[in-house]
């Protein structure tokens, strides 16, 4: 695996020294532009969260005159906030578990075995990527009403994980493929069955890929919105942070300061997770361009 990673790194193309001045200027212009574009929402969150309500009522400006943390106090003192975070966490973990349980075995056979229907299954999985959650909301709503899943986090987890699954299978397939087949051959000669090979050989060797996929599923679950806002509308006790933030902008008197703290607390942990799996995702993307 290390050998596969090295050429990619060596290909960071140009050394810093050999760039003409004009191109340097363009490059730094681009860097500044994209940094501002990406950081803008977080700057808004920070700037707003730290201003006092009086200052927020006045004319708009970026830098708070005084740092006011009363919004954070109000956020942490509100018991419903903890509920929102607990629910987001439950949905994210549930999403992760379901995606891994369904995704790992599927990705393993798809990566290693040729069988009738393999192509068909891959095409069907790809086609599910064209579905919008919105298109399925009404039938799912009816189905959930009948099965009692409506208003429960389980319902949100099931729907959300089905939408997370295709990309996860595809990521995992790439990771399993990168394990040399010879290892499996050797294990087979030693008398391991397919399950034994999967658990004793493949899974331990693909821990980084498994972790990356699990984190990806966690992030998607944490960010879940459409299913939660639709299925949990009448069950506020089960709503995640994203719905909590959305619900509070519908109110007459919006506490923006508190809302921005909620948004910050709702995004920052996930950003940290995402930063850690970035390299694995990069590797996954590199395999798309070289064909499946």
């Amino acid at each position, binding site marked *: 695996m290390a050998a596969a990673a090295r050429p990619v790194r060596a290909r960071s193309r140009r050394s810093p020294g050999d760039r003409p001045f004009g191109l340097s200027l363009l490059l730094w212009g681009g860097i500044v532009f994209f940094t501002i574009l990406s950081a803008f929402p977080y700057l808004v969150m920070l700037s707003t969260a730290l201003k006092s309500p009086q200052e927020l009522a006045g004319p708009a400006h970026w830098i708070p005159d005084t740092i006011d943390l009363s919004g954070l106090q109000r956020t942490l003192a509100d018991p419903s906030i903890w509920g929102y975070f607990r629910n987001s966490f439950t949905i994210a973990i549930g999403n992760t578990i379901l995606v891994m349980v369904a995704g790992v075995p*599927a990705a393993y056979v798809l990566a290693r075995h040729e069988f009738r229907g393999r192509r068909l299954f891959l095409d069907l*999985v790809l*086609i599910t990527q064209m579905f919008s959650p919105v*298109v399925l909301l009404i039938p799912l709503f009816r189905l959930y009403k009948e099965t009692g899943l409506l208003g429960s986090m389980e319902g949100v987890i099931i729907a959300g994980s089905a939408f997370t699954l295709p990309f996860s299978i595809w990521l995992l397939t790439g990771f399993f493929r990168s394990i040399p087949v010879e290892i499996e051959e050797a294990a087979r000669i030693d008398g391991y069955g397919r399950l034994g090979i999967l658990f004793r050989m493949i899974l331990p060797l693909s821990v980084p890929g498994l972790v990356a996929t699990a984190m990806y599923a966690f992030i998607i679950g944490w960010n879940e919105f459409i299913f939660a806002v639709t299925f949990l509308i009448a069950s506020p006790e089960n709503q995640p942070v994203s719905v909590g933030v959305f619900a509070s902008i519908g109110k007459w008197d919006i506490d923006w300061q508190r809302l921005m703290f909620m948004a910050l607390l709702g995004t920052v942990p996930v950003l940290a997770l995402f930063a850690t799996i*970035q390299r694995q995702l990069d*590797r996954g993307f590199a395999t798309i361009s070289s064909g499946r």
Partner: protein
Amino acid sequence: MTAPGRTAQASAPAVGVGRSSDRPTVPGSVTLGRSPRRRRRIETAYLYLLPAALLLGFVFLYPTLQSIWLAFQKNKGINDPGTFNGVDNFVKLWNDPLFWKITGQTFLWTIGVVGITTVLAYLLAIVLVQRFRGRAIFRTIVILPAATSLAFSAVVWGFAFQPENLVNHTLAGFGPAKGGIAWLANVPQAWVALIFVGVCVSVPLTGVMLAAAMRSVPRDLYEAASIDGASRVAQTVRITLPLTRTMLLITTLANFVVCFNSFPIIFVMTGGGPVNRTDILATWLYQKGFQLLDFGMASTLAVVVLCALLALSLAYVHLLIHRTKVG
């Protein structure tokens, strides 16, 4: 892949003689043929797919069939058993000028976001593959929006786009200070704001994917081109662009589908208003289903959207399969 499986049939009678009979003839993948032993293997292969198939069937297959069933009904809400009314819903939709208007808006939104995103993401990818001080930090900052819930992004952008708020304040910093623009309350500017936000949330991931493709272009091509005296711009146009064409195609189509289906940004920022003028088919469908409780018409619309996307997705699969081989 199938040919060795057929030759293996000759030695098929050796059932249970020894493990050697089912050792794969092709190194690299286990080929499953037709001997009883192999058939059992096929069955276990399906067993491995079962959890995934169940989950996808429960969430995608059954609801899709339900949607089609509902599309031919007059059905007002969750407690209505519904009455079959043939193609009435489809006729009504076809004759509804609002449907055509919103379809137009959907394409305006989709093409606007995807077009601008593709151009900006390509530039971002070029920046991402350069070496410069602080590159690691830049890569992390730039990817942030891809990890953020669209609901959060939309709420925060919606706040910043309020007339008295940070967007107008920042714009006033450039050039003559203009009166506050009511970004989300009127139509041409609401689309500008929405498409801007759509672009902001789509650029990072697209840029990272394109950068991954750029990094896999063999380095010696650039070296050879430099020796031949090709400028950097010429190298980008003549080497990078053709060799990342496959990824460009994949990301453009993927973004097209995602934007066509996009829901949270418009739902949170304008709710489709003023009076449906920033609706796209996805948000209109939601409104019909869950605000007007017209499950029948909403399902009809869902089926129409699905058919449009299925046509798109078939083209997508087709291109993915055939183009990746070329690229």
